[in-house]
C-alpha cells in the first residue's frame, strides 16, 4: 500500500500563480488567475474586490474596516468590539434589528467580528439577494442612528459575552486574550482587547458617534464580493449605493512597533475555575509577507499542525504530557488576516505531576532540533502540502474564507493578487531557509512562557450533586 507524495495539485497551483493581466480602465485591475478578481477604488477611496465563483448559487459579502482593537482609545478598552455590536443597532434606513431581519428573510447568515487590525461585517446568502445586501451595508457605512437605550442594551450583551467567554469559563482567556498582554509591551498590542468591564460601562453615545465618524469611512474600508454574480452588474450596484458616501480625514496610524525582546519572559496567572494547570508559549513573528514570515508559516506546520507535527509527536504521543498541543499564528484569525505585530503560540493543558520545566525541556529539544539542523526534504514537502490543503479550505467556506483573504490583502497591502502568489512563495523555500528563520525567531530570548495555575482556594463547587425537584 505505497502512499506516494502527491504533487499534482501543487504543480497546477504554481503554474497558475503568475501575474494577472491588467486591462480595462487604468485604475482597475482585472486578474484572470487561479482566483480571478476585479480590483478598483471608488473616488471616495473605498476599495472594491469582486471575485466570481459559480460553484454554488450563493454569494459572500464582506466589508472590512481598518480599525481593530489594537488602536481603540486608551481609556476605552473593549470599545472597538462594543462598537461592532452598535453596527447592528440601527442606521438611517434600518432600525434596531432590521438589518438582521433583512438578511435572515433573504435566506442569509451574517455576523461581525473584531480583530487585531480590522473589524469586519459579513453575510452569505443565495446569490439573487446581492443588491439588497450591498444597499444595507452602504446604509450603515453612511452613518448610524442609535439611541441611548440601544447602547445600554448592548453594554449588557457585551458584558455577558465577556462573562460567558472569559470570566465564567475555565481557561476562558487562555491563551488568545491573555498571551498578547504578557508577550507585548507596546500598549496597542498589550491591552485587554475584550475590555475592562468598567470601560465598557463608561462608553457614551458621543464615543459611538465619534468612532464611526473617525474610522468607518469608505477610504478606510474594503468591500469584497465572492460567489455567483455578474461583475458588471455588481459594479453598477456598488457605484449606486457606495459612491456618494463621503470620505473622511483619517488620523495618523499610531506606532504599533513592538521592540525586540532581549530575554525570555515568564508569567503566571491563576485560573479560579480550572482544575488542571495549563501552559502556553509564544514567539514574536517576523513582519508579514517577508521571507522569514513565509518560513514561519511552514515551521508552524512542521512544529504544531496535525498529528504528524514534531511538538504533537513529542509532547502528546511520546511523552504523554498532554492530550493535545494547540495553537498557531494569529489565534484570532489566520496567517494572513492581520497587519501589525503578531505571535506564534502553542498551548496545552497538563496534569499536576508534570512540571512546566519538564514540558519546556521537551519543547526545547524539538525547537533546538529545527534550529541546529535543516529539516529533511520529506518534512518540508509535507508542510507545503498541508499548507496548500489548508489554503484550499480557507478559500472554500461558503466564499467567506476567500472574502477574508482578498479583504486582508486589499486593505493592508493594496494588492489582493497576493492571494495567487502564496503557494509559489511557500514552495520556493528550502530546508536551509527554514533553519535560518528558526535560528532568528525561535530563540528563547524571543519567547514568553505563560503558566496557568489552579486556584488553591476554589470559589466554585461545580459538579456538586443536583438539587431536588
Amino acid at each position, binding site marked *: 500500500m505505497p*502512499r506516494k507524495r502527491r504533487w499534482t495539485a501543487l504543480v497546477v497551483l504554481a503554474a497558475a500563480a503568475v501575474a494577472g493581466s491588467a486591462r480595462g480602465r487604468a485604475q482597475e485591475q482585472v486578474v484572470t488567475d487561479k482566483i480571478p478578481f476585479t480590483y478598483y477604488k471608488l473616488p471616495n477611496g473605498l476599495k472594491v474586490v469582486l471575485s466570481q465563483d459559480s460553484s454554488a448559487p450563493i454569494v459572500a459579502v464582506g466589508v472590512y474596516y481598518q480599525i481593530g482593537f489594537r488602536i481603540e482609545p486608551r481609556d476605552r478598552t473593549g470599545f472597538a468590539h462594543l462598537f461592532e455590536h452598535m453596527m447592528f443597532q440601527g442606521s438611517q434606513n434600518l432600525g434596531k434589528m432590521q438589518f438582521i431581519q433583512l438578511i435572515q428573510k433573504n435566506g442569509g447568515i451574517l455576523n461581525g467580528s473584531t480583530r487585531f487590525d480590522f473589524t469586519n461585517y459579513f453575510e452569505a446568502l443565495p446569490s439573487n439577494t446581492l443588491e439588497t445586501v450591498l444597499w444595507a451595508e452602504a446604509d450603515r457605512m453612511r452613518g448610524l442612528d442609535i439611541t441611548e437605550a440601544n447602547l445600554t442594551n448592548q453594554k*449588557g450583551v457585551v*458584558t455577558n459575552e465577556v*462573562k460567558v467567554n472569559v470570566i465564567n469559563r475555565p481557561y476562558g482567556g487562555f491563551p488568545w486574550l491573555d498571551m498578547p498582554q504578557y508577550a507585548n509591551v507596546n500598549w496597542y498590542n498589550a491591552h485587554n482587547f475584550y475590555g475592562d468591564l468598567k470601560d465598557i460601562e463608561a462608553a457614551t453615545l458621543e464615543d459611538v458617534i465619534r468612532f464611526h465618524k473617525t474610522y468607518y469611512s469608505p477610504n478606510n474600508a474594503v468591500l469584497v464580493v465572492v460567489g455567483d454574480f455578474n461583475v458588471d452588474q455588481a459594479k453598477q450596484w456598488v457605484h449606486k449605493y457606495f459612491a456618494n458616501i463621503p470620505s473622511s480625514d483619517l488620523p495618523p496610524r499610531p506606532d504599533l512597533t513592538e521592540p525586540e525582546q532581549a530575554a525570555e519572559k515568564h508569567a503566571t496567572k491563576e485560573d479560579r475555575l480550572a482544575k488542571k494547570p495549563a501552559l502556553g508559549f509564544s514567539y514574536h513573528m517576523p513582519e508579514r509577507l517577508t521571507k522569514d514570515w513565509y518560513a514561519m508559516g511552514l515551521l508552524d506546520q512542521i512544529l504544531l499542525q496535525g498529528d504528524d507535527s514534531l511538538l504533537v509527536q513529542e509532547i502528546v504521543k511520546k511523552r504523554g504530557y498532554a492530550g493535545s498541543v494547540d495553537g498557531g499564528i494569529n489565534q484570532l484569525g489566520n496567517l494572513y488576516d492581520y497587519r501589525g505585530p503578531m505571535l506564534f503560540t502553542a498551548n496545552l493543558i497538563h496534569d499536576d505531576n508534570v512540571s512546566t520545566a519538564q514540558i519546556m525541556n521537551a519543547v526545547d529539544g524539538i525547537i533546538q532540533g529545527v534550529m541546529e539542523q535543516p529539516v529533511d526534504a520529506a518534512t518540508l514537502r*509535507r508542510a507545503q502540502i498541508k499548507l496548500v490543503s489548508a489554503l484550499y479550505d480557507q478559500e472554500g467556506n461558503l466564499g467567506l474564507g476567500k472574502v477574508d483573504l482578498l479583504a486582508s490583502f486589499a486593505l493592508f497591502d493594496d494588492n489582493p493578487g497576493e492571494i495567487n502568489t502564496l503557494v509559489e512563495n511557500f514552495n520556493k523555500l528550502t530546508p536551509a531557509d527554514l533553519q535560518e528563520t528558526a535560528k532568528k525567531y525561535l530563540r528563547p530570548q524571543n519567547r514568553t512562557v505563560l503558566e496557568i495555575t489552579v486556584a488553591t482556594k476554589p470559589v466554585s463547587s*461545580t459538579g*456538586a450533586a443536583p438539587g431536588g425537584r
Partner: protein
Amino acid sequence: MGKQIMIIRSLIFVATLAHWSGLIGAVASAQTPTNTPAKEQPPAPSPARPFQLAPRTHYVLPNGTQVNLLQYGTVPKVSIEIDEAAGKVNEDPQHIDLSAVMAELMAEGTTKHSGEELARQAGDMGSGLSIEGGVYQSTFSIDVLSGSAAEAISLLAEVIEQPAFPARDLERLRADHLRSRATSLANPGFVSRQAFAQIMYGDQAYGRLLPTETMLKSYTLDDIRSFYAANYGSQRTTIYVVGRFDEKAVRASIDKNFSGWTRGPAPQTPVQTAASGAHFSFVDQPGAAQSNVIYGIAVPDVISPDATQLAVMNSLLGGSFGSRITSNIREQKGYTYSPRSSLSQGYGTNVWAENAAITTVSTGPAIQEIVKEIKRLQDAPPAAAELAGIQRYEDGVFVLRNSSRGGILANLSFVDFHHLSDDYLTGYVQRVDAVTPEQVQAMAKKYLNTEAMSLVVVGDPAIVKPQLNGFVASGK
C-alpha cells in the same frame, strides 16, 4: 451527542468563528425616531437561481459495506468519512466511553504501521486523520487533496480493519480522558448539559456524558479487543466520499480495501426514550458571574409527520438570530449574550430546549421571559410576514448548508442515520414553505407544555435560588 450534532455544527459555524459577536435578534423596532424623513426601502432581490442537490451514487458491497459517492465543487479536495455503527449504545453502563477510547486508540497504530507513520501518511495527503466516538456511531474521517483520494481510502481501511491497539498508547489515552473529564466538570456550561442529559435520559446512552474515574482506570486491552470484535465489521460500515475525485480510482480502492473485510455483527440501533414530566435541577456554583440555564421538554423525533412544523416553530421561537426569545432576553433586556433553542434530533428521540448563560442577578426574570414567549406563541399564531421571514431563512440556510462538501456529507449521513430517504433533502424547502401560522401555534400548544418542562440551573445558589421560588412553585 454524536452524529446528530454534526448538522447543527455545520449550520452555525459562521457565528462561532466570530465569537458570536454579532448575534442579534429581530423584532420590529419601537426605537425608530418618528420625525425623520421617510425610510428608503431595501431593493428587492432578483429571482432566485435554481438550486438542485447533486444526487449521490449509492451501492452496497457484497459484504454489506454501504458506499456513497458525490461529486461536488471546484476546489481540488475531497472529504472521506467512514461511519461505523458502534458507539455508546453498544457499551454496558459500567464501560462508558470505552467505544471512544477504542476508536481513538485505532489511530495509534495498525499491524503494518505505527501511529507516527499513519500521521505522516495523512499529512502527505494534506490532512490529518480525525476519529470521534459517538453515541450510535464512531466516525473516521479525512479531508485530502483530490489526487490522494484512493490512497486516503486505503489508509482509513487499514486503520479500521487492522488496528494494533498498542498497550502504551492505551495508558496515555486513559490519562488524557481522566484529564479532560476533570476539565469538562470545571466548565459550568458542560455541567448544565450533563445535568440536563441526566434528567432526560438517565442511564441511557444519551444520558451518559462522562464515565467515572473508576471506570476509566479499569479499561484493559482485553475490554478494547472484545468491544472491537463484538461491534466492528462491514455490515456496520458506511463510506461517504464527497468533493472532487477520480470516481474510477475511488471505486477500485473501496473495492480492494473493503470488500474482503469480515461482515461482523448486524447493526443494532436501540431507541432511547426521553423523560416526561417536569424536573428541576440546581447545581451550586457559588460566586458565579452567570447562570447556565437549560429549559426543555421531549418532543417528537425527526421522522414524525410534525417534524418540519416543529423545526420551523423552533426557528421562530428561539432557534435563529431573529427569533422571539433572542430578541427579548438579548436585544431588549440584555440579560444574556448567546441564547439559543434547539432540537436535539436524536435517534428515535428528540428534545426541544432553550440554552442560555444569563447574568446572575437576571436569571429568574430571564426564565420568566422565556416562559412568556412560549405562552405568547401558544396564545396566537405568528403574523404571516414573521413566519415568511423564518421560512425564507430556513430555505436559504438549507442552500448554504448544501454548498460545501462538509455540509453535504453531514446531510447524507444525517439522512442515513435516521433511516430517511433522500426525499427528506430534495423536498425540504417545499415542506418548510407549506407550514402555516396556525400550524406553528399548534406545535407550541401541543408540545411545549410549560407545566411539563424541565429546568437546569448551574449558578450562585444564594442569589439565584430565591429568584426561582415563584417560578418553581407556579411552573411545576
